[in-house]
């Protein structure tokens, strides 16, 4: 396990994270991968409050992900000021 691996739920609004692994059933996890959540992909958390789903920006689109599923997305926290390349 990577040292600072957490789930998508742990990433505060406005921060970026790198997808490490999807820890769930075949169908759903595959769907997420096909929507761009592949290992190594950088995502930005747009909204994350206990009231509703997590909203992330990935490959230019916004995805809403239910909290139950977000809890199964293992990510690496990159912080607010991470820039790709």
């Amino acid at each position, binding site marked *: 396990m990577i040292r600072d691996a957490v789930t998508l739920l742990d990433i505060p609004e406005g921060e970026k994270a790198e997808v490490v692994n999807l820890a769930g059933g075949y169908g759903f996890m595959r769907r997420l991968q096909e929507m761009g959540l592949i290992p190594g992909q950088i995502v930005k958390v747009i*909204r994350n409050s206990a009231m*509703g789903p997590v909203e992330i920006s990935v490959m230019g689109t916004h995805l809403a992900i239910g*909290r139950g*599923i977000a809890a199964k997305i293992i990510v690496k926290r990159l912080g607010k000021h991470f820039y790709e390349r």
Partner: protein
Amino acid sequence: MKDKKEFVVALAGNANVGKSVIFNQLTGGNQIIGNWPGKTVEKAEGFIEQEGIRIRVVDLPGIYSLSTYSEEEIVSREFIAKEKPDLVINVVDAVNLERNLFFTLQLIELETPLVIALNQYDILENKGLEINEKKLSELLGVPVVKTVAVHNKGLTELFETVKTALLEGKKKISNLRYGKEVESRISELAKLITKKTKTVYPPRFVAIKLLENDPLIKKEITDKEILEKAEKFRQELKEIHGEEAETVIISERYAIASRIAESVIRRKSTFRKSIGDWFDNIALNKIWGYVFFILVTIGIFYAVFEFGSFFSDLLSTWLESFKPIFMKMPLSPFWNKILWDGVMEGVIAGIGIVLPYIAPFYLILAFLEDSGYLARIAFLTDNLMHKLGLHGKAFMPLIEGFGCNVPAVLGTRIMERDRDRFIAAILATLVPCSARTVIILGLVAAFLGPVYALLIYILDFILILIVGRILNKFMKGTPSGLIMEMPRYRKPVMKIILKQTWIRLKEFVYFAFPIIIIANVVMEIFSIFNWIKPAADFLKPVMTNFLGLPPLAGITFIFGILRKELTLVMLSTLYHTTNFAKVLTPRQIFIFGFVTMIYIPCVATIAALKREFGWKRATAVTIGEFVGAIVLGGILNQILKLFMP
């Protein structure tokens, strides 16, 4: 022109990229469209006939991949893979090229003849970007046409390109390749497949899908050697990359998509933060989002009511003024009664009570659908929906239920699992459709005041919550989660909104109107022969003693099974007035509204339920809701006796 040939062309692509808009523009079709993923759940067909060729155009539900899970996506996959259209128009969202190309690449793997429509190109330009479509076309080996479907731009060119591609009919084999480890295994497996078995799919496609562990393809391949080899390769890939083989392939496919996208997209000017992002800070805010949502809902309610009641009064009075003319007609009393009390009263009720409410309602619904706000409601209600054993996506068919329950029941196909679908469908039948809105606004709000109408809506929503909780408890399985693409906000295009409204109104005018008039005439004949009273007496114990309603109301409930509007229309014909305050007490108006709201939707909905879930479950829902409505109506009557005369 020589022999006339028919071609089949399918529209395919990710959800919410504008396939149905293109379909409507190309074929003049009437597909319901809107800015949220999952509207089209069934394939629709239209025809283009031009210069001696006939093209059957098929609009398919949105799909992210050729490996699919939810029911509406299987429709698309089966059609593309098995029915082999002559050509697929792959509608691609220009703003999300990388994501969309992921699907395009799979179509290329399937060796489907393709034309790409690079749609919503205007939005890309607004973002200060441009795409070199010539280069994209070269890289993919597929013709590419820029389009802005909502404004009918680029569609003539698209059609010409499609026509040329169809007539030339040449097939291009792509040279897009995966990384060495993956590619060598694909080609070895493909060779074995060619040698040992025959499939409807190209061998290379089958090889890739087997390495991806695709359950549907695995079912079709019976040869043991192939399956064993695929499994061996999967293990090897896992060892090399430290990830499951399917993850490796998906990642590599995305890498190809991303490489292509990067090399064709160019920045023209600087990026502006869109108004949509700013607006979402309110619309999706954990407090203001709900406040805004409630304000919007109440706003819609009052707008529809004010508009509706104003025009309802105006039109009813005007139409009633024709009565003397009809009465003077030289007809026997029998025919006079049939003509005025049967036909005309039906027309008056249809135009005077129903139309003024549903027209503005449909207009607002189309506006909501087109703007992209619906998906925000799904976002806000996700947690609430979880308590009902569903997730936020279920909210979209439910909202559609406000228009009509039939598409709402079909729309539940966007739910991934059968259990979720069934719960969502039952809840959808409890959503007050436009017909019921007419009754609540035209009867309860008009004669008791809007607050009472709101109260009925609130009671109904509470009922939906309770039923959802109960179903969730008694039906096996845990709820699945929400994964939904948030559509961009879009400035609704007036022409499209008006068309959408007209499509729905047409349904009412052509389909419901005749039913209303015929039912009214039948009722009039019953009344002329004095058959109403025995029927009413039969219903009396339940109607009067338990629900506190006049026995005649029971008859309207029976007709209401055909169309819900009929309950109110019949009430007006039975009492020969549209001023219901004269014939019903306030309590009766309230109970009448409440019971109509929840007892089974109508025949069309029952048929939709039967089609989707079988007659057993459809019957269970029908009986359950009927009994539930009577029991709850009776209880409500006892409670209301304390407050209302």
